[in-house]
């Protein structure tokens, strides 16, 4: 799966070297169509990268300077340079391979029962063969020795602990492999079996249901309102009322100098609409209020109500509009130009595209969906409404998340917790199944039972579907193996002989034995054809 060689710049020269010799901090050059050799951060150029073998995401992901690239993924269109951050056994691919191998070597809890049976199986069959021999020799028809021998040998041959022993590991291996193909890392057989029996899912809000990153959603002018986010794609500049472009451009110019996370959302919002930001002449951050700056000869104020009051700016109807925005779970910021209220910029953590579909799918699977968040009730409810979640646990401190999971478990439910990893770790551990979403970090993988490499909530649905399909396959195999053995052994012992005169030949027994193993393997392979 990995690239064999890497093109590395050393001493100012490009050289192809075996991928094993790439060191951390090496500069690696990747051309279009090539496999990225190791993990790293892009430092020059940009491209689209097909990450499907790691994340299962079929669309290429765009990469620019500062973005992370993953080894073994395929570079599509552009050329770029990156600095290697993880090589050898530390790469994401190596971690995933190790994880999948470990999981495939683990046990589904039901296997423990099978193991107990298997431990008795071999000696029990040997004893049965001897009993068969003695009974046929003592009471069977002539030639007694020939019959006794045939019965004993046939019994030994037809008994197939293989089918019983393979029933669960075969399906487990296939199921976990299937998960890995779809960007879902199932860490053990335990996780697989528990995921099948879930009846409630707790979703963390930030970063799980939402993107976890604020985005510019609304621009409101002092007299009219123009919404950006709800119109879908951003309209061409020519169609934008120039007053809005002006407001956004000036605000973005100011916020470019700020380090506030909300400021970044405004700058990105302006850039996404093709607006060119200007340089600021003066800039002052007023802690707890906002910022004040001079741009293009105008004085721009951006901040909260306190800032506007302090500067004595009349807000008029804007104050009412700001409240409506806040009710929708957004964070509004006032903008004033040259001492006049000009408008409001609203920023919010937006919902991931397919969260609503995924939550609907979970409900359809019969799962109770609960949202948990540290945010205030108003924001939480607004998001919950958008995605169709009925039960909301808001204003929950991070350390109380695990307690809330436990409360749901006390209602007698098998609970899955879905979070973005690190700060959810106790809750992930408390839940019957912890799913870490959109991450390949070691910490998150360690804390979770199932890791969803892709950020989409649909991964939760797929993970549960795969678990259900795998466990169904396991049960089918176990029932098949059990029925085969419990029917085959008595027939081999000749129980049908007194009534119908039927006695199995050792040859047929050998065929039946192989056939039972083939059936189990074929059934497990059937699982490979599963699609989400």
């Amino acid at each position, binding site marked *: 799966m990995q690239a064999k060689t890497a093109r590395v710049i050393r001493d100012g020269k490009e050289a192809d070297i075996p991928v094993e010799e790439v060191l951390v901090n090496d500069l690696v050059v990747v051309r279009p169509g090539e496999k990225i050799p190791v993990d790293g951060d892009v430092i020059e150029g940009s491209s689209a990268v097909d990450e499907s073998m790691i994340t299962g995401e079929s669309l290429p992901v765009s990469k620019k300077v500062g973005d992370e690239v993953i080894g073994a993924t395929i570079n599509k269109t552009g050329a770029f340079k990156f600095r290697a951050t993880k090589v050898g056994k530390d790469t994401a691919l190596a971690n995933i391979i190790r994880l999948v191998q470990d999981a495939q*070597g683990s046990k589904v809890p039901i296997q423990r029962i099978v193991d107990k049976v298997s431990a008795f199986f071999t*000696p029990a069959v040997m*004893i049965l063969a*001897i009993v068969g021999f*003695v009974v046929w020799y003592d009471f069977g028809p002539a030639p007694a020795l020939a019959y006794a021998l045939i019965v004993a040998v046939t019994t030994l041959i037809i008994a197939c602990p293989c089918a019983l*022993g393979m029933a669960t590991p075969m399906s487990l291996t296939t199921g976990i492999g299937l998960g890995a193909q779809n960007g879902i890392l199932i860490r053990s057989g335990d996780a697989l079996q528990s995921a099948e029996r879930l009846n409630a899912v707790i979703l963390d809000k930030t970063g799980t249901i939402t993107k976890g990153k604020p985005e510019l959603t609304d621009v409101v002018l002092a007299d009219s309102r123009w919404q950006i986010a709800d119109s879908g794609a951003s309209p061409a500049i020519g169609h934008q009322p120039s007053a809005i472009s002006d407001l956004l451009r000036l605000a973005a110019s100011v916020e470019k100098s700020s380090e506030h996370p909300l400021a970044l959302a405004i700058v990105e919002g302006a850039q996404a609409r093709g607006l060119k930001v200007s340089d600021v002449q003066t800039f002052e951050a007023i802690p707890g209020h906002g910022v004040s700056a001079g741009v293009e000869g105008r004085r721009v104020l951006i901040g909260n109500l306190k800032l506007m009051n302090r500067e004595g700016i009349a807000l008029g109807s804007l104050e009412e509009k700001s409240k409506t925005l806040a009710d929708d779970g957004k964070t509004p910021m006032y903008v004033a130009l040259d001492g006049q209220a000009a408008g409001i910029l609203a920023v919010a953590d937006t919902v991931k595209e397919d969260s609503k579909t995924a939550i609907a799918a979970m409900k359809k699977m019969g799962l109770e969906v609960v949202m948990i968040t540290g945010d205030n009730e108003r924001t939480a409810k607004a998001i919950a409404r958008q995605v169709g979640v009925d039960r909301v646990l808001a204003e929950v401190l991070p350390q109380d998340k695990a307690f809330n999971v436990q409360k749901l478990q006390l209602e007698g439910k098998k609970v899955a917790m879905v979070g973005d990893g690190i700060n959810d770790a106790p809750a992930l551990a408390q839940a019957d199944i912890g799913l870490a979403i959109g991450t390949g970090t070691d910490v998150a993988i360690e804390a979770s039972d199932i890791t969803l490499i892709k950020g989409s909530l649909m991964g939760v649905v797929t993970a549960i579907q795969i678990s259900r399909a795998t466990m169904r396959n396991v049960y089918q195999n176990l029932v098949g193996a059990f029925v085969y053995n419990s029917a085959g052994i008595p027939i081999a012992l000749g129980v049908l002989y007194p009534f119908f005169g039927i006695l199995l030949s050792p040859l047929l027994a050998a065929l039946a034995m192989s056939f039972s193993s083939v059936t189990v393997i074929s059934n497990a392979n059937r699982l490979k054809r599963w699609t989400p």
Partner: protein
Amino acid sequence: MTPDKLLVTLFGLVTIASIVWFFWLVKKPGVKAALTTGGYQETMVLVKGGYTPDVIVVERGKPVRLNFVRAESASCSEMVLIPDFKKSAQLPEGETVPVEFLPDKPGEFEFQCQMGMLRGKLIVE
């Protein structure tokens, strides 16, 4: 009952008794893994129609390295699993394959082939 039938019956009973004794009653002493200079408790395990030794005793809390050597071509034994420590390994014929893990819990754990036909026991003290 003729003498030969009596003989066969007796022989059968004795064989059954010895099967019961061999599989369930006898306690195999097990081989204690040797502590190497690297801090590992190490032992070789020969894979040929079974695991030799098939009972391995290790101390709790010290890393274990089991070096499996598969000396047969039968595909039955091409993989070894230690499910309780979530370890598995492919065993190419003739190669020494080390499997490392930390026995952090005392008890008796099994290692086995992929079909569960060959079994060995790991005792953590």
